[in-house]
């Protein structure tokens, strides 16, 4: 039976019976919005949708990169939807969200990498009527384009996040079109532009990285001024993606949390089902 034999007992999720799940799905559909929850086939989807939270995937559902872990469709994306920022505002209002995570596919085809759409979305959410929302952006590396990074940071999100995803040794296999140092530099530069900005990054465990390699990445992120670090188990979305090399135990995740706190990170989220934006609004 698929995946059953090799999957440890701690990697089991409960499906929550909640009418809020249907409501969230209906709102997303009504406004034509994509979520990374659905595109990445996230196992936390029941928890998040039942609490009426979602991580919006802007700039379409087609990515120009070819990361081997990711289930998001790859290919040539369509033009950006100019109404998307407003649709997100409307969905956020209807769902009554207090914390919004905005991420995107990587748009290497666009001159600004899609930074302008991030800025428009942040601005639209800040101008939203009613209760203020906390805005977290999870951005691509914009190929290291400083203007793009400056634009997004300048729009003043509450949290600026960019996932380093894995250790440098595994970049060629996991993120072939990305560069470890470029990603680290994006986080460092964001902090340099705006020292009081909360910055965040995350790693997926289970690709074959060693503990010392992860600790070294954590130290690098801390040196780049990163405030929040997340680490969770990589789960293969389908047989089309790279296989899980190892299931990291809950105790090992606790170990990473302890190490991170000792390093001085403001916050560490570490556990098998931790995803970079999972339950952020609750913490």
């Amino acid at each position, binding site marked *: *039976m*698929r*995946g*059953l034999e090799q*999957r440890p007992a701690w*990697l*089991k*999720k*409960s*499906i*929550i*019976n909640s009418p809020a*799940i249907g409501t969230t*799905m209906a709102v*997303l*559909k009504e406004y034509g919005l994509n979520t990374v*929850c*659905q*595109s990445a*086939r*996230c*196992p936390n*989807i*029941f928890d998040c949708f039942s609490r009426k939270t979602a991580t919006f995937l802007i700039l379409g559902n087609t990515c120009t990169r070819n990361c081997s872990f990711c*289930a998001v469709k790859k290919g040539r994306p369509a033009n950006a939807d100019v109404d998307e920022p407003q649709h997100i505002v409307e969905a956020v209002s209807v769902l009554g969200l207090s914390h919004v995570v905005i991420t995107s596919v990587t748009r290497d085809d666009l001159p600004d990498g899609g930074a302008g759409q991030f800025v428009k979305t942040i601005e639209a959410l800040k101008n939203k009527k009613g209760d203020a929302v906390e805005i977290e952006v999870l951005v691509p590396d914009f190929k290291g384009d400083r203007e793009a990074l400056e634009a997004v940071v300048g729009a003043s999100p509450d949290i600026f996040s960019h996932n380093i995803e894995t250790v440098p040794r595994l970049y060629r296999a996991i993120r072939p079109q990305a560069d470890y140092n470029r990603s680290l530099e994006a986080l460092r530069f964001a902090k340099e532009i705006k020292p009081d900005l909360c910055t965040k990054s995350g790693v997926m465990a289970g690709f074959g990285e060693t503990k010392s390699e992860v600790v070294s990445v954590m130290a690098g992120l801390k040196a780049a001024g990163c405030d929040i670090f997340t680490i969770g188990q990589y*789960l*293969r*979305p*389908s*047989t089309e993606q790279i296989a899980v090399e190892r299931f990291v135990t809950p105790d090992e995740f606790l170990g990473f949390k302890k190490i991170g706190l000792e390093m001085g990170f403001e916050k560490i989220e570490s556990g098998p089902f931790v995803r970079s934006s999972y339950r952020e609004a609750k913490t």
Partner: protein
Amino acid sequence: MTEVKVPDLGTGVEGATVSMWHYTPGDTVKQDDNLVELVTDKATFEVPSPVSGKVIETAIPEGSVVRAGDLLAIIDERPQ
């Protein structure tokens, strides 16, 4: 009677496999007790019973692939 169906996740996951039933027809189940385990390519999910009652039917045998909206079980929530 309450029908328990495979939830629509909108995730593009083509199907899940029924890996284990925790109850058989005739058993009494409590609300929120795990009724059946589903395995997708990415994760393992427990489907809790939405109501307390008697299991009338487990519609899908273990090892079969189900899709969103498929009937999994029928629970009779009337007092026995």
